[in-house]
């Protein structure tokens, strides 16, 4: 067993293999923002409380501020930058725009990612299921009414959200 201060790792980020050397105490959030320049992932609390840093790890939403990057090595990670395909917005992104599910926008990447993972698993959710699924994301502008509308509307687009 090796006990190391530096780790050479790779991640599969938004479909691309990214290799780099990291230190064990760097969080996944720090690596995404500071090493890889993926600043769509936001640091709101750094304590796994607010959800602004949510990314998908193996398609499940996690708080990247409270996951050691080294623990996620070799895994598939989706950030908000990876949702847009060929310049076309993801249906959940489009729905947040259409329904004003945004005020200041800081929490939005986290909400969109959490919602997209949820809609991958749940075809026709009830409003209550949407609330439960998004209960780990805080919007201090409290745009919750329109966030729920956005997610419900995206779910009604009738086709699978992601391939």
């Amino acid at each position, binding site marked *: *067993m090796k006990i190391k201060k530096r780790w050479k790792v790779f991640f599969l980020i938004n479909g691309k293999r990214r290799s780099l050397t990291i230190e064990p105490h760097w969080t996944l959030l720090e690596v995404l923002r500071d090493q890889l320049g993926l600043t769509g992932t936001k640091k709101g609390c750094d*304590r*796994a409380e607010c959800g602004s840093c949510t990314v998908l*790890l193996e398609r499940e939403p996690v708080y990247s501020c409270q996951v050691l990057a080294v623990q996620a090595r070799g895994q598939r990670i989706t950030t908000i930058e990876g949702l847009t395909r060929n310049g076309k917005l993801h249906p959940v992104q489009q729905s947040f725009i259409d329904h004003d599910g945004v005020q200041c926008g800081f929490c939005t990447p986290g909400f969109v990612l959490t919602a997209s993972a949820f809609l991958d698993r749940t075809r026709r959710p009830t409003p209550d299921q949407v609330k*439960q699924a998004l*209960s780990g994301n805080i919007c201090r502008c409290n745009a919750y009414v329109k966030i729920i509308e956005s997610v419900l509307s995206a779910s009604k687009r009738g086709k699978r959200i992601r391939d």
Partner: protein
Amino acid sequence: MHPFRYAEPESVAEACRFLKRQGTSAMPIAGGTDLLSEIKDGVAKPESVLNLKRLPSLAHIREQDGALRIGGMTTLSQLQVYPVLRRNFRIIEEALSTLATPQIRAVGTVAGNLCQRPRCLYYRHPLFLCAKKGGTTCFALDGDSRYHAILQNDLCPMVHPSDLAPAFIALEAQVLLAGPEEKRLLPLEEFFLLPGQNLSRETVLKPGEILVEVRVPKPKAGTRGTYLKFRERGAGDFALVSAACSGRVLRGTVAELRLVLGGVAPIPFRARQAEEMLMGQRPKKEFFAAAAQAVLAAATPLSGNRYKIEAARTLMVRAMQAVLK
């Protein structure tokens, strides 16, 4: 965050040996949500961190003769979707649905939930060197005590924050601990320590020992269970008070009852007095109230948490009403 070294053991045995050798300078990490908060807040300062989460042997859920065997590194979200839960282990399912947030359940583990450290505002605060952290004073005893214990709270009024622990104990779960030399199996109820037994730690884990499995026996036919959690926010919040209850009524009288409270004591609090009073009785609301009253007669509330007595009474009665019918 304060830097540390990091290692990934190949086996449980290797992990145990390493942890024993390193003593308190090494800490195991699983989901990390609790440990990393402690490191960032300066409460924990490990020199090295040992990742148990990649040990495949610890991430299982199995049924054996109807009993459930849950690997310590099983994530809470894996457990939550395990099909048999809804049928036979309702309490666990209910506890999980109230626990933390989807993002935390995705990485948090069963062992991590049972081994998490207290949420006491003073303990978690870098500016208070409280008795639990090696200081001489408990600041909560005459400070802000609204979230603290009402029972067994003389030395350190922390409350045990786990939702799963009361649920498991109500189901008579056992835990399997692996150490460098041997494994041992004990009731989960005996896993937790009161501050009087050890002020700085909350469990019986010895240096080098890790929690590898939880074993939950299959409830007898006719057993019902529920987990009630009272909290301020609708999600992502720890319990002010919670109650896990498992019981069975046979031919009109209580044949089996286990009632465990969270949020009221430094350990998951087994309300044995209530259990004993009700055994063999007809399940009636007056008896439930009397039994709850007997449990709470021992309460020693602090200046800010008297309300927890009434809340605990309510949850006990409601839990028993839901289960014993």
